[in-house]
């Protein structure tokens, strides 16, 4: 019996090992963008807001540029500073190509964020960033159009913080909502995708 098991193992284990070492088929092609790609790409919803640069914030004024659109607020202590620092870092790494990249950051806290406040906040990361401000109704409409949720938490001292969606939308040169980058991607991922979108 023992000899039979021996013969069996000698015959089959190398065969199994051989099968295991067979080369795997080539993996599927790597995704082109690091961000999530929306298809078919559709026109980015309009923004009926005021820009911190003193002009209306219709996205049509950025046609020909790639727009990085995100939502946040100037009193945000965590997510927004990281996002904005990442976007500023990406623009820096792009060098001269950064001229064709526009960051638009829309407040989810219109009660505290007026144009001056947002301009100061965004300017501490990159002077080219443009903020979107407006009335509560205008901000609500913008959030709804982009599926942005926000939840206000009131603290014991009367102050409040706002939890909010933290994805960054990538709008191509033609004004189409092309992709969305979830929060947490590093600078290099943005640079990678921006280079592709700028070429396209």
């Amino acid at each position, binding site marked *: 019996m023992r000899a039979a*098991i021996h013969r*069996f193992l000698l015959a089959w284990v190398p065969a199994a*090992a051989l099968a*295991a070492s067979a080369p795997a088929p080539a993996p599927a092609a790597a995704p082109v963008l690091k961000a*999530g790609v929306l298809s078919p790409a*559709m026109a980015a919803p309009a923004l009926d807001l005021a820009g911190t640069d003193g002009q209306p914030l219709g996205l049509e004024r950025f046609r020909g540029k790639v727009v990085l659109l995100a939502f946040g607020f100037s009193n945000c202590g965590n997510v927004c500073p990281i996002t904005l620092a990442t976007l500023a870092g990406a623009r820096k790494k792009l060098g001269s190509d950064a001229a064709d990249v526009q960051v638009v950051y829309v407040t989810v806290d219109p009660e505290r964020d007026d144009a001056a406040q947002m301009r100061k906040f965004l300017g501490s990361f990159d002077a080219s960033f443009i903020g979107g401000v407006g009335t509560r109704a205008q901000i609500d409409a913008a959030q709804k159009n982009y*599926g942005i949720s926000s939840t206000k938490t009131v603290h014991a001292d009367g102050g409040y913080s706002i939890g909010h969606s933290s994805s960054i939308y990538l709008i191509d040169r033609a004004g189409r909502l092309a992709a*969305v980058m979830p*929060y947490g991607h590093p600078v290099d991922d943005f640079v990678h995708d921006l280079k592709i979108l700028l070429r396209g």
Partner: protein
Amino acid sequence: MRPGLRIVLLIALGLPLLAVLWAGFAPIHVASREKLFEIPKGTYARRSAGDLVEILPSQIRLTLGLEDVLVLRNLDEVPQVFGPSIMMPGQSLRLPFERAARYDFVCTAHVSGQLTILVEEEPVMPWSKIRWRVREWWEKREA
């Protein structure tokens, strides 16, 4: 021992051993790195009518290097916030993952409004390959 019994014993012991060896050492082949989920047509209408039946799993598991691209498709008649993005009717989102982590997203297609995506490291060690295969088999069986 009778020869017939010996063969039966050999098969009874050998086949499971082979299966374990295969599961632990053979490379894992997947047809596609994409894992597709769809919001069916009429989901919003069903929700509005008070139907709380879940149409999608509340947790989606992905594995780096094997199934690490989530494809979400909105077949409903209304926009849905699915994962990190709004999706128009007929639109799909192809979302690749490169880091193992737990991702919590808002999802209007879920009764809870939440979607969790668990991205795990690629199974390399025999035990992790066996575990991955068993889980895949189990999930497909339940689907």
